[in-house]
C-alpha cells in the first residue's frame, strides 16, 4: 500500500470565531479560542477505533503555564462531575474502551479521545458532560500538576528527561513569553481545531453539536490573530547553543553522552533527507552507531539517534550513548567519526534504503493508528483555513524521496558536528580537560539543564 494516497483526505473548515483568549470566568481561567474554528475530517483509522482531537493554541505562554493548563484539562477530564465521581468516570472509561490523551506540542494543547467505533458517539456525550459539568478539585489539580513534572536527568540518566527540558527551552526562548496569573482552576471552551477520525455521519453531527455549545473567548483576546501569530512564531530563531553541559558524578561508573542540535530546513525534502541520514547513523540494529559502538567496540548497550519534529521544517537531531565512564572521550570521538563519514556522503546505499523503508512504514502505521500524532502533523501543515482535498507536504516528501540522491546532500541537510551541544552526565574525566576551548556549564546535583541552556546561549563575558 502506498503512503501517498493514504494521506489524501478532505477537509472543509469554515467557522467564525474571532480571536483567542484567556479570560476569567467564575474564578476559573477559560481556555478558549476566538479564532476561526477548523473542523477537519481525516481518513478513518484502520483499527476499529474512532477519534476526535481538540486543539487549543495557548500562545505566548511559558512551558510552566502550559503544564498548568494541561493539568487543568486532566482535572476536568478525570476529577468528577456533578453526577459522576472520579471513580465512576474511570469505571465508565474502562468498561467502554475509551481513552483520553492530553499532550502539548509547540504552543498547542491537544486532547484526543479514542473509542471503538460502536461506542464513539456515546464517548462524545461523555466528553460533553465532563467539559460542561465538571467539579473542580484543587487537590486533584495539584496531583496532576505534580505528575506532569519530569525527573532530573542527573538522577534518572534518561536522555528523554534531557530532551524534555531542551524542547521546553526551545519553546520558551521567545522574548514575549510570560507567565500571566492563571490561577489553578480552568475550564475549556472552543478549540481552534477539531480533527475527526470517523466516517459516521451521526458522529459528525454530535461533534458539531458539542463544538457549538463550547464557549468562545470573551472578551476577545489581546493577542493577535492566529495566522499572524504563527508567522511571528515561525520567524523566530530556532537554535540551541553549542558547548558542553556537564553534571559530574564521580561515584558513577557510567556516563551518558548526548549530542543535540536544533535544525531548521529549507524545505520538506531536505528535512526527510536529514531524517533518513540520522536514522542511518543511529536508529536500530542496522545503524552505524549500533554496528560500531555496540557490536565492534562493545562500548554501549544503547547507542542511538533520534529525529524529533518540532514544527514545520524544524527538528531536534540527537545522538546518544551511555558508556563506561573512563571511556567516554573515546566513544565521543567514535560518534564524531561516524557522523562525519556520513556528512561526507560515505554511506552504504542498501542500508540507507532500508532506513527509508522503515521510515515510510512507521509513518503509515502511525497515520492509521495514532490520531494524536496525525493531528500534530496536520496542525503543522495546515494551521490556517483549508478547503477541499489536502495533502501533508512532509508525508509526500517521505514517500517520494530520491534515496540515491541523499548521500550527496548530506553536508547540506545535516549540521556540522561542531554545531551540536554536548551533554555529559556521569563519571570520568572532566570535559574541561578534553575540550579546554569549548563553552562550558556545570550542573548542580539537584538542578535542571535549563540554567545551562540559558547561560550558553548568552554572549560570553
Amino acid at each position: 500500500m502506498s503512503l501517498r494516497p493514504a494521506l489524501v483526505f478532505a477537509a472543509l473548515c469554515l467557522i467564525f470565531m474571532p480571536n483567542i483568549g484567556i479570560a476569567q470566568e467564575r474564578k476559573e481561567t477559560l481556555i478558549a479560542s476566538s479564532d476561526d474554528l477548523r473542523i477537519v475530517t481525516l481518513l478513518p483509522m484502520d483499527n476499529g477505533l474512532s477519534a476526535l482531537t481538540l486543539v487549543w493554541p495557548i500562545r505566548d505562554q511559558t512551558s510552566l503555564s502550559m503544564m498548568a493548563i494541561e493539568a487543568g484539562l486532566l482535572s476536568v477530564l478525570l476529577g468528577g462531575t456533578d453526577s459522576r465521581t472520579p471513580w465512576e468516570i474511570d469505571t465508565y472509561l474502562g468498561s467502554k474502551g475509551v481513552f483520553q490523551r492530553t499532550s502539548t506540542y509547540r504552543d498547542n494543547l491537544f486532547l484526543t479521545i479514542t473509542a471503538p467505533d460502536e461506542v464513539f458517539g456515546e464517548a462524545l456525550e461523555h466528553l460533553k458532560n465532563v467539559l460542561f459539568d465538571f467539579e473542580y478539585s484543587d487537590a486533584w489539580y495539584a496531583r496532576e500538576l505534580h505528575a506532569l513534572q519530569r525527573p532530573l536527568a542527573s538522577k534518572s540518566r534518561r536522555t528523554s528527561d534531557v530532551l524534555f527540558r531542551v524542547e521546553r527551552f526551545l519553546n520558551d526562548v521567545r522574548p514575549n513569553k510570560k507567565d500571566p496569573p492563571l490561577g489553578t482552576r480552568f475550564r475549556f471552551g472552543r478549540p481552534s481545531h477539531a480533527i475527526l477520525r470517523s466516517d459516521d455521519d451521526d458522529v459528525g453531527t454530535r461533534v458539531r453539536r458539542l463544538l457549538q455549545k463550547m464557549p468562545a473567548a470573551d472578551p476577545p483576546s489581546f493577542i493577535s490573530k492566529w495566522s499572524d501569530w504563527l508567522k511571528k512564531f515561525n520567524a523566530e530563531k530556532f537554535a540551541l547553543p553549542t558547548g558542553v553541559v556537564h553534571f559530574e558524578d564521580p561515584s558513577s561508573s557510567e556516563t551518558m553522552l548526548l549530542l543535540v542540535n536544533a535544525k531548521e530546513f529549507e524545505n520538506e525534502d531536505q528535512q526527510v533527507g536529514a531524517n533518513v541520514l540520522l536514522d542511518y547513523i543511529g536508529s536500530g540494529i542496522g545503524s552505524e552507531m549500533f554496528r560500531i559502538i555496540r557490536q565492534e567496540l562493545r562500548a554501549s548497550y544503547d547507542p542511538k539517534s533520534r529525529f524529533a519534529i518540532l514544527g514545520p521544517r524544524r527538528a531536534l537531531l540527537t545522538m546518544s550513548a551511555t558508556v563506561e565512564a573512563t571511556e567516554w572521550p573515546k566513544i565521543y570521538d567514535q560518534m564524531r567519526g561516524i557522523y562525519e563519514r556520513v556528512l561526507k556522503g560515505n554511506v552504504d546505499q542498501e542500508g540507507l534504503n532500508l532506513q527509508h523503508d522503515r521510515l515510510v512504514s512507521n509513518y503509515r502505521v502511525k497515520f492509521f493508528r495514532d490520531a494524536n500524532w496525525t493531528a500534530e502533523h496536520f496542525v503543522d501543515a495546515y494551521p490556517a483555513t483549508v478547503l477541499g482535498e489536502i495533502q501533508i507536504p512532509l508525508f509526500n516528501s517521505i514517500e517520494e524521496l530520491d534515496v540515491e540522491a541523499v548521500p550527496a546532500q548530506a553536508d547540506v541537510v545535516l549540521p556540522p558536528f561542531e554545531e551540536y551541544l554536548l551533554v555529559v552526565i556521569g563519571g570520568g574525566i572532566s570535559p574541561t580537560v578534553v575540550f579546554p576551548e569549548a563553552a562550558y556549564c556545570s550542573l548542580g546535583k539537584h538542578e535542571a539543564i535549563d540554567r545551562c541552556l540559558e547561560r550558553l546561549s548568552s554572549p560570553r563575558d
Partner: protein
Amino acid sequence: MGILVSLILALVTMLVVPATTVSAQDVIPIEDRGGLHSAYVVPRDRFERVDVQLIVLSGNYDDPNLSGIAHLTEHLAAFSADRTVLRRARERDVNALIFDVATVYTNSGAPEEIETLLQLSRAVLDRPDLPPGFAESEIKILHRETLLRERNSPNRWLRRRALKNLFGSSYGRANNVIEDLPRLNLEDAYKFHEIHYVPSNVSLIISGDIEPDEAAKMVAKYFGDTDVSAVPEKPWHDQKPDKSLRTVEELSSDRLSDDTVALVKFVDFEDRATSIDLQGEFFLATTVLNNRIWKALFFEDTSLVDVSVDWFFSKVADVELSLAAYPMPGVDLHSALALVEETLSGLLDEPITREEIEQARREENVYAENASRRTTDFLRYLRNVAMDGFAPVTPTGNQRLIESTSDEDVIRFARKLVEPAATSIVLASTEK
C-alpha cells in the same frame, strides 16, 4: 454564536480497510513437533504477517547462584541465531526478551518468509556460535545494560530489596544482579544453555497469516528431528516465605526522583499444585481487587501521586503482589504506608458484589478487544500464559474463559489473596 460547518469526506475507496473485529482466534496444537514441549498455530490474517514466538520456559528465576546468567544466555543465543541464519545482521532487528520465568525469541516477517523465521527460531536451540572474542565481550554489554536499567528504573532495585527480604535469599525469586556482575562468565552461560535450551523446555507459537497445515509442515521440517529431553529442575518453585513474615526496610538515595513505598506480598495456594485451572479466577479476582485498591488509594484519596499494582501468578499456584506507591510532596512515607496497608487489609470489609464482577468481566473484554488491534499486544497476550508452559490463550479464548468462571470462584479466590501473608516493605526516600 453559531457554527456553520460543512464537511467533505473524500475517501479513496481503495484505502478503506476493514475495521478490527474480535473474531474467533483458534489455538491449534501441532502434533508432529519432535521433542518440543508444545507447539501451536494461531491463524489470523488480520495483520498480513507471520510471527513465530519461541519460548524457552526458563528465565531470571532460573539463574543458578549467579544472577544474570539467563540474561547473558539470551543475548548469546539471539545473536548466534541471527548470525547463523542470516549472515548479515542489518537485515532485521533481533527481538529477544527475558522474563522472570521464560525467555521469548520473536521472529516476524511476511508470510512468504516463514521458512527463514522457523530457521531463526530453530537456531536458538543450537549452542551459541559467535566470532572469536564477541561472546566474551558481550559480558561487557550486559554490564552496560544492567547498570543502565538499574539507574533508569529505581523500582527495579527497590523491588529487588523487597524480594530479598521476603525470600531470605538473593537467588531464585530474588536476585543479586548488580553485585554478581563481576562474576558473569561464558562457561556458566553455555552450561545454562545446555540445561535449559532443550526441546522439552521449549514451546513454539506461530501466529498470523498462515494456514494450519502449512504451519504444521514447517514445524515438522525444522523441529521434527528434536528429541524429548530431560526437563530442567526449577528450585524456585519451592521458595516459600514464612506466612507470618513482615519486614520493613528504610533507605535513602540520591538516585530516586520520588519517595516510594515498595511492597511485595506472597500468597500460596497450598492445596493446588498448578495454576492452570485457576486462570479465570485469577484474572477476575485481581481485576476486582485492583479496582478496589485504585478506588481507595487514588480516586478517594489524593495523598498519593500514583500507585502501580502488579500480580504474578506462578505455574505452581502462588501469587506475588507487587505494589509501588508514590506519596505527594509533604506526605511522609509512614503515613503513605499506613494508608496502603490499611487499604490492603480492608479490601474485603465490604463483600464483593455481582456488579463488581460483571464490571471486571467487561474490563477484561475491553482489554481483550484492544489486544486484538495491535500485533505487539496480540503477541503479548498469546505468550502470557504460555510462558508457564500452558497452551496460549487468545483474546477470544480469554473472553470464553472469564465468561465460564463463576462468581463464587472469583470471591473465593479474592478472599485467599487478601488473607494475611508474608509481606516485605521498602520505604525509600529521596536524598535531599
